[in-house]
């Protein structure tokens, strides 16, 4: 994981840049302070060394004074003046530290005694001794005095020092003046001389010598008894450098002698430092300087010492350490600050968050102390309990549990109050973890509120506080009750639902296995049509009415019954203490109740029910078996024509098994060529000509034998096998039409029965259209025949489908018309070409007036809507003739021909020359025509 400032401190780039910038400034300041400190430290050191140097100079000068005083005293003390002894004494005053020091003795020699002194010196071996001014010093001029001050003795005497011998010091004016002063003060006098030979400055210090101790002489006596001087000559520069070298590194110094301007002298450079300078040094040029008089008490000539302070003098280790310590300190400090800021921000954020949580919490949040006194109170608490925060604070929390009057009347003590508080919220068993308690509280109005209180202890500054998160679950609890009801009761009818019912029956069976009861499985007949035609709202109202009627019918049958809406239009009843007789009675009562006219909104409806009955324990020992058997019995009632009841028997089970077997074989019927089409001719009642045929499917299974269509078509519809079967039928019909093409039967149409399942199939119409196009057959030759029930199912959707069928040119007929519920308004909208009068209405013709009326009505209706009518099931000549009279367009039926396989049909057509009236009924037809 890549760590960075951004990730560690969550700093933005700008903050990081600012952080680095501030750090850089602090680092620079620290380094500058360190530099300054080093500079001042070095400066202090320089000045300390300067003081030491000056001190040493002073000491040396005092030493010189002392030496000169000693020499002077020694000279005075000598009764017999001996230069040899003086030399020995002077030599004893020299040591290795003063090896550059030259001690001398110069005697005042009056001009008239010059030769005498020279001769004396000559005899001693100083044979070049001639008192003279050799211009040894630049300061020497003409001696205008009455005497010479001749150097007669030098210690140590070396060839180099021998140059001083015989030199007349009175030729130096300053010596003369200082000599005069020294006589007066008997103090050491010093002057700076410039040696011509060495071109170096030399310091000449001297004291006068007297015949007697000057301490006992007045000035006049001193003038008489003064005999010369003892002096010390030292190389000024070398001594200074020697002394400086003891306190400084000479290589770092620049030294010069500065002479005051009034003497018109200039700076005399003595030493130039050898310090290598960097560019920075040349730019800044820091330096330390001190000035001190070359001689104590002399201000005209000064020593100027300068020491540059360069980069090389820097203590880089200290600088680096300072830099590192500064960086470390800065890092540490900023880390601490950032941490504190972040921590504070987090705390503030957390506080804001907590405040907002408290303010906006959907729960009432109450903080109390350990005694239950309210410390905090959020807005939701105000909403929930009706007390403002000001009212609630410092009030006992138990006032929300018990009415105020109760509390005051019961004289609750302080301890009891605490106990109430703890007991109510289960705090006594509190284990430190948050816990939830459901409790009923009161608001300001005294209304009870079901609440869930989440309680937890808070340790705030060593004080225990209790946080209460109170959720109003009044609505939740009521909702839960409703949901529980919904879980076990049908919301529409308020009857028990399947789950509850089965559980209840199972419990009864488990608890009282010897009990006898009956299970009624009731299914409304035609409920689907009601839903489809009148809408689900009507259907729902119908179910509610039926449910009420069931309840009413069973009101007197005693307790212990269970009525369940099992699903859709199915009801299941468990009735206690039932046998077959009682069950039959109840069933009839139920059927009667249900079939009564029902008025919903503006519609009057009449439905029936099919009931199947299974008895416990003979028809099953568990609820599922009983339900299955009751269902089987109900189907039996359906098969029996509906609106009836059936009591289960084992044969019913066998019927079911048969259905399963049929379904099994039906799946392979097409592949095994077990299906065939039979064609029933349709004739024009006016001409007797065959206009076409109705294709009727036949199934002959090797195992099951011949199975009638009304037995396997419903199964095929239920199992969706009808799609494949329908396609096979269409293919076969079109093939037949193709066969008939270019034959005398080429104008025949084939009416092909199509089930509702096929019609709703999205690709069915396209499939048929494609087959017809491929066969190049005129599409009006194929007539799609639908049952009235199919037509009226999803009537709104069918309008579009029918228009498509008609738009493609196919014929569209309605079979079994009059047996179902046909809405005349929809009938008007349907683009039907043919209506087929159901056989049931044809059967009564011409005797039954109702049938005649119905048939007449249908014919009138169809003709008024420009539809043609086919009468089905014409089985007698009377029926045929009457229908002719009623101006029915077409007819089919056994009287004309039963359905024939294609070979038989073709034989029949050949024989009748495609005109029914050309056959055995020829005479009749002629008669009719006539």
């Amino acid at each position, binding site marked *: 994981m890549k760590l960075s400032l951004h990730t560690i401190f969550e700093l933005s780039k700008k903050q990081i840049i600012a952080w680095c910038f501030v750090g850089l400034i602090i680092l620079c300041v620290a380094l500058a302070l360190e530099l300054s400190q080093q500079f001042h430290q070095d400066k202090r050191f320089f000045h300390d060394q300067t003081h030491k140097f000056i001190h040493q100079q002073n000491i040396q000068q005092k030493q010189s004074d002392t030496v000169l005083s000693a020499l002077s005293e020694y000279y005075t003390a000598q009764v017999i003046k001996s230069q040899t002894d003086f030399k020995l004494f002077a030599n004893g005053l020299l040591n290795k530290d003063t090896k550059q020091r030259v001690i001398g003795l110069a005697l005042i020699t009056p001009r008239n005694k010059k030769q005498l002194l020279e001769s004396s010196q000559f005899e001693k071996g100083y*044979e070049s001794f001639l008192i003279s001014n050799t211009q040894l010093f630049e300061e020497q001029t003409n001696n205008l005095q009455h005497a010479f001050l001749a150097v007669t003795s030098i210690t140590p005497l*070396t060839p180099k020092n*021998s140059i001083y011998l015989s030199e007349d010091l009175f030729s130096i004016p300053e010596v003369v003046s200082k000599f005069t002063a020294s006589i007066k003060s008997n103090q050491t006098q010093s002057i700076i001389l410039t040696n011509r*030979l060495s071109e170096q400055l030399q310091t000449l210090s001297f004291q006068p010598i007297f015949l007697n101790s000057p301490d006992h002489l007045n000035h006049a006596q001193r003038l008489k008894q003064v005999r010369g001087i003892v002096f010390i000559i030292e190389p000024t520069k070398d001594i200074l450098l020697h002394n400086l070298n003891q306190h400084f590194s000479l290589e770092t110094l620049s030294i010069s002698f500065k002479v005051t301007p009034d003497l018109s002298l200039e700076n005399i450079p003595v030493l130039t430092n050898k310090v290598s300078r960097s560019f920075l040094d040349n730019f800044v040029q820091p330096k330390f300087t001190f000035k001190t008089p070359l001689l104590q008490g002399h201000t005209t000539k000064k020593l100027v010492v300068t020491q540059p302070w360069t980069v090389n003098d820097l203590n880089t280790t200290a600088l680096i350490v300072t830099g590192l310590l500064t960086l470390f300190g800065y890092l540490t400090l900023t880390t601490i600050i950032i941490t504190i800021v972040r921590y504070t921000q987090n705390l503030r954020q957390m506080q804001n968050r907590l405040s907002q949580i408290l303010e906006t919490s959907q729960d009432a949040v109450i903080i109390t102390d350990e005694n239950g006194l309210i410390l905090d109170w959020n807005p939701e608490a105000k909403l929930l309990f009706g007390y403002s925060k000001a009212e609630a604070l410092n009030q006992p929390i138990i006032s929300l549990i018990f009415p105020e009057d109760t509390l005051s009347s019961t004289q609750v003590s302080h301890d009891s109050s605490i106990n109430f508080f703890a007991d109510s919220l289960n705090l006594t068993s509190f284990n430190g973890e948050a816990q939830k308690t459901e409790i009923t509280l009161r608001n300001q109005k005294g209304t009870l509120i079901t609440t869930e209180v989440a309680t937890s202890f808070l340790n705030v500054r060593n004080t225990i506080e209790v946080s209460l998160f109170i959720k109003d679950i009044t609505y939740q609890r009521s909702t839960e009750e409703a949901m529980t009801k919904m879980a076990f009761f049908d919301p529409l009818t308020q009857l028990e639902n399947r789950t509850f019912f089965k559980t209840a029956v199972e419990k009864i069976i488990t608890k009282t296995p010897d009990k006898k009861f009956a299970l009624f499985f009731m299914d409304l007949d035609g409920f689907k049509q009601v839903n489809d035609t009148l809408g689900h709202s009507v259907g729902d109202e119908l179910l509610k009415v039926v449910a009420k009627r069931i309840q009413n019918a069973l009101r007197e049958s005693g307790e212990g019954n269970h009525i369940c809406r099992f699903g859709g239009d199915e009801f299941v009843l468990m009735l206690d203490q039932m046998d077959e007789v009682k069950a039959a009675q109840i069933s009839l009562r139920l059927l009667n109740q249900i079939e009564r006219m029902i008025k919903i909104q503006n519609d009057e409806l009449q439905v029936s029910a099919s009931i199947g009955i299974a008895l416990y324990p003979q028809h099953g020992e568990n609820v599922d078996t009983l339900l299955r058997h009751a269902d089987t019995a109900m189907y039996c009632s359906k098969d029996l024509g509906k609106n009836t009841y059936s009591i289960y028997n084992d044969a019913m089970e066998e019927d079911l098994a048969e259905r399963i077997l049929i379904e099994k074989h039906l799946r392979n019927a097409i592949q095994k060529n077990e299906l065939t089409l039979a064609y029933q001719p349709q004739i024009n009642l006016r001409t007797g000509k065959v206009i076409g045929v109705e294709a009727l499917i036949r199934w002959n299974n090797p195992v099951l034998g011949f199975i009638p269509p009304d037995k396997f078509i419903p199964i095929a519809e239920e199992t969706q096998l009808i799609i494949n079967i329908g396609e096979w039928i269409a293919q076969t019909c079109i093939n037949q039409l193709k066969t008939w093409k270019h034959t005398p039967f080429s104008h025949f149409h084939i009416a092909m029965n199509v089930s509702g399942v096929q019609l709703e199939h999205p690709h069915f119409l396209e499939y048929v259209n494609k087959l017809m196009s491929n066969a190049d057959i005129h599409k009006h030759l194929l007539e799609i025949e639908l049952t009235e029930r199919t037509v009226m199912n999803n009537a709104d959707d069918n309008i579009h489908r029918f228009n498509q069928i008609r738009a493609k040119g196919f014929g569209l007929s309605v079979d079994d018309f009059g047996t179902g519920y046909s809405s005349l308004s929809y009938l008007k909208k349907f683009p039907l070409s043919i209506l087929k009068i159901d056989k049931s209405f044809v059967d009564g013709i011409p005797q039954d007036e109702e049938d005649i009326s119905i048939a007449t009505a249908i014919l009138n209706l169809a003709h008024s809507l420009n539809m043609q009518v086919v009468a089905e099931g014409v089985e007698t000549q009377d029926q045929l003739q009457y229908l002719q009279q009623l101006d029915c367009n077409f007819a089919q039926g056994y009287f004309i021909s039963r359905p024939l396989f294609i070979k038989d049909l073709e034989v029949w057509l050949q024989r009748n020359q495609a005109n029914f009236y050309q056959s055995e009924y020829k005479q009749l037809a002629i008669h009719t025509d006539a």
Partner: protein
Amino acid sequence: MLNLRRHENANRFFDYNILVKLSGGVLFYKKNLIQLSLATILAFSAVANASNQTSGSTSTLPVCAYIASYAPGYAWQDGITRGIEQSLKGKCRLKTFYMNSKKVFDYQKMEKIALYAVEFIEQNKPDVVIVSDDNAIKYVLKDHYKESNLPVVFCGPNHTITQYQLPYPNTTGMIEKDPTERLLKLLFNLTPSKTHVTFLTTRGISADKDVAEFHRLVKKIGIKSSAYQIQNQEDWRRIYKQVQEDPTTDIIFFSNNVAFKEWDHEENMKWVLKHNHKLSITTQGWMMPYVALGMNKAPDEQGHWAGEAAIEILNGIQPSQLSIVPSQKFQMLINPKVAMPFKQQLPENIFSHASTYNARGSQ
């Protein structure tokens, strides 16, 4: 660099010529003592020069020529040479010529030796020349380099240099001044009543100067004195016995015995011890076995002074700016064997201050 090499070649050529002359002297002038002496001198010079060359590794140094009056092996000469070499070591390439003139009394011989010395100087082209003792000063400095441009430092002249008209502008140096005055003053301070000094010395230039200086000194101090210039060893014994037994003599002051052709140390030592009645003193180191007290000059001081003066001259100081000074350092010695009879007369400090003479060391 080229010039230096030429100098070295010239030195080798000079050495070769010397050797040729040496061998020529042996073959053809066998009977000629002058030639033999010169050959001996040249042989010494060659050896000294060779040794100087090997020691002078720093060819960039200036050249100093040293003309010594005597030959190596003579204690005084060795002391001066030692002083010169010590002071010039590392500062100057020293080229030494020994005149070996101790036993040469003939003026012409001396002049001839001086000519060799001059040739030696000319060959080496020195920056400064040092001459030691009177013969070199007289026959080389005075005769050939008086007021020349070549700076010359002298050392070792006895008592004074006036007889050579020194100092010249191109000279400076140190005079060998006996500590006689200091020694006598010391003794007279000790025993003011016994101040008659009898001076015993040999014959010759130096001895004459010694006698003259002695007389000047006693005159200056104002004391009684006697002086004897002795011809040989036998005379010395006789005079010695005489003055030891002379009641007017308080102190016997011995000069050197160098001029004596013979000197039987054992016999003379016995003689001294047998007739040791008076306090005997000397300022000559080689006479210390025969005296009780001595205050001796240090020949090394002469050499040191000359060397240091040469250095100052090489540093740019004119010779005339350097003062001519007398000897500065003296050493007091006591010979216990001879001094023992006078122990009671002498203060304790004499014995404590003075160094004890060691005959072996002296020899």
